[in-house]
């Protein structure tokens, strides 16, 4: 079996960084973010990288006509649907897993290699699962929050989840290295481009971008764990008592 060097290297790097970070826990304001010093440094690194990545994504977003962007998004989405099916199965959500398998079969054939979301038109709803969510369903807690270069925010659990996602990622497993690299690159730019609309919102909404992104990421992942059906009480657990809302 072909082992994926890149994944191994990045796993090692993440592991090493985690150990390094655990050695330098300093002043932390948020109990969920004990390695804030390290994370802020990595956040700065990413903001620096984005000076290059963002214009590329903007260029792609401007130049590529909508049908092209849709086909690119569908193609990578179809690959992920297969992984979503596996994870839904691992989480015991059989019905969703069957629907996901159906999506992949239909879109890979009738949808010409995943270029068109025919299954979606037929009413098979797209789900999104990853291994971090599966671990969460199995009861693995979040663990400390991390901010990694290139991949961005992840809890400890989701960092391990991401490693497993990447290990089984069909794109990373391609033997043809130039093809693999260009697919990885295209997917990264497509992903960055899809985040462009939220850039301005975050810039204006946030008092401090680092905090805002951390808090939003943690809320977002918690909601994903519940497949978007987070019980309302969980959000309001510390809300002031309603009687106090009157002036």
């Amino acid at each position, binding site marked *: 079996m072909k082992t994926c060097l890149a994944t191994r290297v990045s796993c090692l790097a993440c592991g090493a960084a985690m150990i390094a970070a655990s050695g330098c826990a300093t002043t932390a*304001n*948020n109990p969920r973010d004990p390695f804030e010093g390290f994370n802020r440094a990595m956040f700065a690194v990413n903001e620096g990288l984005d000076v290059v990545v963002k214009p590329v994504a903007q260029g792609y977003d401007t130049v590529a006509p*909508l049908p092209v*962007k*849709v*086909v*690119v*998004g*569908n193609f990578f*989405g179809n690959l992920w649907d297969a992984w979503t099916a596996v994870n839904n199965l691992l989480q015991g959500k059989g019905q969703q897993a069957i629907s996901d398998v159906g999506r992949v079969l239909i879109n890979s054939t009738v949808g010409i290699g995943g270029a068109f*979301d025919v299954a979606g038109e037929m009413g098979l709803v*797209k789900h*999104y699962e990853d291994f971090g969510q599966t671990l969460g369903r199995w009861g693995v807690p979040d663990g400390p929050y991390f901010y990694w270069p290139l991949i961005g925010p992840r809890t400890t659990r989701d960092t391990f989840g991401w490693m497993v996602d990447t290990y089984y990622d069909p794109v990373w497993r391609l033997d043809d290295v130039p093809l693999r690299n260009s697919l990885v690159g295209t997917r990264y730019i497509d992903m960055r481009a*899809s985040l*462009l*609309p939220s850039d*301005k*919102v975050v810039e*204006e*909404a946030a*008092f*401090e971008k680092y*905090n*805002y992104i951390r*808090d*939003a990421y943690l*809320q*977002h*992942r*918690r*909601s*994903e764990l519940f497949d*978007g059906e*987070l019980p*309302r009480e969980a*959000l*309001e657990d*510390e*809300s*002031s*008592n309603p009687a*106090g*809302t*009157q*002036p």
Partner: protein
Amino acid sequence: MKSLFSLLFGLLLIVAPAAAQELSPDALVRKVTEDVLSVVRQDKDIKSGDTRKAIALVDARVLPYFNFQRMTALAVGRDWNKATPEQKKRLAEEFKTLLVRTYSNALTSYRDQTVVYKPSRLQPGDTSVVVRTEVVQPGSRPIQLDYTLEKQDESWKVYDVVVAGVSLVTNYRDTFRQEVSNHGIDGLITMLADRNQQLQVGKK
């Protein structure tokens, strides 16, 4: 007979506006969304990033259906009860300005998305409900956009907006709590006011 008819007609006139105010939460979210989107679709200025115009649209079409006092209380959390009525009023005013700007900015990036409305599970007698919608964009994962509404004097008002699981309101809670513990309620008011001023000066 004629007087009976005019009586009925008169009753209709009285009843109709009242009924219009009592839209169900589902119907209300759909109406406001469609109202706003139909304007944005035809407005080149908004689509090319005219924030001021987007804010005017939100002010006119969305604000009447939002309860900012409740929203602010939710964002501030436990410290809300420490604020005086005057401080509460100012907090709500500043927070409203910030949220309206955020919401309006999101509108300027509207392109070809469609909104799918999911039926809410409203039980008779409920005074709070979540209305779930999904913003569908070809080639991308749909974005979940949920509104939490509360019944207030017979009409429903939105007090939380949740995008992809992230509440635009409670996401501020830690930041606000920290500011209150460092500089008190007045510190938080100043922080909000400064931010709003900065944004107003910086952008059109």
